[in-house]
């Protein structure tokens, strides 16, 4: 449809009740002076997220009700594919991800289909403790083994994808809890997508509070193992090449 979109990058920002921070985050990203288009997926927010994002200069995708991060992201990928974007990157609306790192994470796409901005890779001072940390380490180890590359932060929401990965995601990107991170990543890897990671530093959130409840962390561990087991047994996708560029099906 729009050929000029093929060189631009779509930044997908899932936002659910992020009125506090979404405006600033969008402005910050647009201030980087790169060919970035920002798409805020308003995931059924009850506050002014949509208006503030639009005023800041983002395109807003209004989901009529809350679908969760996975649902919001798939809507974003669908939009990207229809508009002919070749590269997309997910950035959190809460300002945790530094817009200056976007280019670095995107650079990872030169030799992989999925590029993850990782928090623990010897950069920044992001730290978690207890069961949540074990869960993250365990997941990282298993998925590193599958992807045959060292990954330290597989639950990072700072993820870039090229055209092949977008097509794979459109086939499988569950709206379930952790579906947007673990499940989609595992199935993408098993379908033949390559993954790389780029170390980034995370900033403190601009709005909202992170949870440090040990019970929640334990539940997180359980659910992540559950999600992982399911992802490992799922059927692989056969990825269709985007109809925008060519008609031939291509393996990822």
């Amino acid at each position, binding site marked *: 449809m729009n050929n000029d979109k093929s060189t631009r990058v779509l930044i997908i920002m899932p936002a659910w009740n992020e009125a506090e921070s979404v405006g600033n985050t969008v402005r910050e990203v647009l201030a980087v002076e790169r060919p970035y288009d920002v798409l805020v997926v308003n995931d059924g927010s009850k506050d002014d997220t949509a208006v503030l994002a639009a005023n800041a200069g983002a*395109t807003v*995708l*209004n*989901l009529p009700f809350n*679908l969760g991060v996975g*649902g919001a992201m798939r*809507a974003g990928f*669908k*939009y990207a594919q*229809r508009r002919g974007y070749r590269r997309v990157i997910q950035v959190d609306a809460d300002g945790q991800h530094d817009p200056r790192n976007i280019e670095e994470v995107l650079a990872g796409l030169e030799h992989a289909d999925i590029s993850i901005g990782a928090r623990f890779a010897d950069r920044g001072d992001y730290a978690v403790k207890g069961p949540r940390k074990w869960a993250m380490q365990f997941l990282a180890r298993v998925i590193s083994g599958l992807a045959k590359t060292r990954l330290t932060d597989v639950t990072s929401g700072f993820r870039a994808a090229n055209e092949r990965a977008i097509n794979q995601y459109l086939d499988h990107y569950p709206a379930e809890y952790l579906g947007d991170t673990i499940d989609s990543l595992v199935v993408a890897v098993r379908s033949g997508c390559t993954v790389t990671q780029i170390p980034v530093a995370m900033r403190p959130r601009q709005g909202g509070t992170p949870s440090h409840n040990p019970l929640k962390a334990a539940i997180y561990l359980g659910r992540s193992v559950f999600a992982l087991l399911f992802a490992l047994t799922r059927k692989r996708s056969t990825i269709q090449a985007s109809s925008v560029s060519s008609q031939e099906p291509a393996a990822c």
Partner: protein
Amino acid sequence: MLNVAAFILSLAIVGVVFEMLRRKKLREKYAALWLIVGVGTLVLAAFPRLLTIVTELAGVQLPSNLLFIISILLLLGVCLHLSWEISVVEDETRALAEEVAILRALIEERPAAATHNGDHANSPSSQ
């Protein structure tokens, strides 16, 4: 006496399902199962000897045990089926929500693009 009550009850089930089907309150695929259940109880209520015969054939001690195990399995099946159906429906709703959001975004983009080109798209174009 109890048999008569059971017969009336099963007759009522079949009647209600049939009426709901007729009024399009129930899709056929869900109705089939309930009709089978209704007719089954109807037959058992009419000929209670049947249950005893089947119980002896299956080697179950009490006819009521056989009845319970059949009902439990049936209800389990119905529950599973409904969970499956609702998952399908949720998936479809999700796809629709995505579609609606994308279409809305594309429509909202349009007037802006047209004004950018210099013509006023707000008035319907007469050609």
